[in-house]
């Protein structure tokens, strides 16, 4: 038995078969962020305001966020500990996420996974993952969120630029996070607007505008850039606790070294 299709629906049927189906005409064209990327420069977070020669652990090196007097004093205390080699870095503990914004300030390599409704920043170091929702949702209301290492990030696409805001971050005061190993810190009031895009040089450019009414007197703009590595480059597991022979003394902040017999090697006075 056959059924005849009513003549009146034939034109619509033809159109439906001939044309691609689009559920959302405004859906953006997503950029190609595939591949493996590595950060340009060292792990001094704000290279633009850095003074002194060397890296994060070199005495004399510091950055100049627009800190208020209280946070400038706190930063200087951390710098003094850094100079003595006893600034405890939560990253060294293994198992504690790096958090935002430091997730954009890591050695090793990165992958930036773009999907229609989420973007994932995957840092090999740690490992660390940051989720950015682009499905139109908003941040949860304040009563439904709590501080986490990477916070809550929601965003949208402006052409091929991802724009997102991040809230609900752990305070550096809790000891759970630092912005870098010079001892940069932020408060629990920190939040940020970030713009990610591939710039004219083919680099992933991440511009973070950080606001923190408890720590900063003005928005703090930091730009990090990442270079795409050779095609075919692989990222690997980073099992930080696999063989961590450098535990931290929680009282002194000193980083110990474990010898081949499983015992602490260090014999420095006072350690």
């Amino acid at each position: 038995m056959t059924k005849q299709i009513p003549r009146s629906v034939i034109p619509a049927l033809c159109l439906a078969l001939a044309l691609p189906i689009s559920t959302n005409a405004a859906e953006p064209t997503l950029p190609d962020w595939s591949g493996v990327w590595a950060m340009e420069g060292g792990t001094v977070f704000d290279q633009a305001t850095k003074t002194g020669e060397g890296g994060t652990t070199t005495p004399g090196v510091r950055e100049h966020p627009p800190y208020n007097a209280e946070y400038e004093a706190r930063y200087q205390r951390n710098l003094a500990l850094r100079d003595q080699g006893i600034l405890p870095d939560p990253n060294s503990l293994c198992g504690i996420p790096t958090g935002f914004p430091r997730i954009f300030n890591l050695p090793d390599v990165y992958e930036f996974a773009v999907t229609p409704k989420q973007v994932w920043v995957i840092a090999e170091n740690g490992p660390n993952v940051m989720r950015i929702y682009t499905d139109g949702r908003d941040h949860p209301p304040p009563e439904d969120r709590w501080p986490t290492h990477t916070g809550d990030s929601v965003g949208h696409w402006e052409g091929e630029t991802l724009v997102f805001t991040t809230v609900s971050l752990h305070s550096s005061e809790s000891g759970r996070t630092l912005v870098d190993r010079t001892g940069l810190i932020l408060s629990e009031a920190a939040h940020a607007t970030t713009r990610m895009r591939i710039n004219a040089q083919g680099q992933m450019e991440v511009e973070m505008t950080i606001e923190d009414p408890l720590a900063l007197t003005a928005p703090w703009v930091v730009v990090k850039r990442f270079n795409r590595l050779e095609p075919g480059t692989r990222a690997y597991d980073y099992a930080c606790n696999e063989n961590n022979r450098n535990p931290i003394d929680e009282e002194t902040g000193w980083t110990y070294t474990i010898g081949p017999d499983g015992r602490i090697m260090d014999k420095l006075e006072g350690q």
Partner: protein
Amino acid sequence: MRHEKFLTVLAAGAMVLWAGLGTAHHSDAMFDRDTTLELSGTVKEFQFTNPHTWLQVMVPNEQGEEVEWSLEWGSPNQLGRQGIRPSTFPAGSKVVVRTNPMRDGTPGGAFIGAMLADGKTVGRWD
């Protein structure tokens, strides 16, 4: 105690030789970056592990006793992308290594570079 007879202090101000743990997951305050030692010994093990690789080398002291040195290098991920493999330092192979030693004189340090018996060099060997 450091046995100078068997260890050659190569240079003071060895910052240029710091091959480092610049991307280390921890402070490098335990290493004397102003001193570079050169050690001759035998590879016991190359721990190709995260967060850092460790080259374990048996080095004779002045009494002729074998002392195990622990030399810390980069992550296997970083090094693997640069062509270093777990097989780079076969157990039992003779090796000369350069290191920024532990400040306290214990037998360990930050790996800088090495020369194997066939003359092949690994890491920084300027």
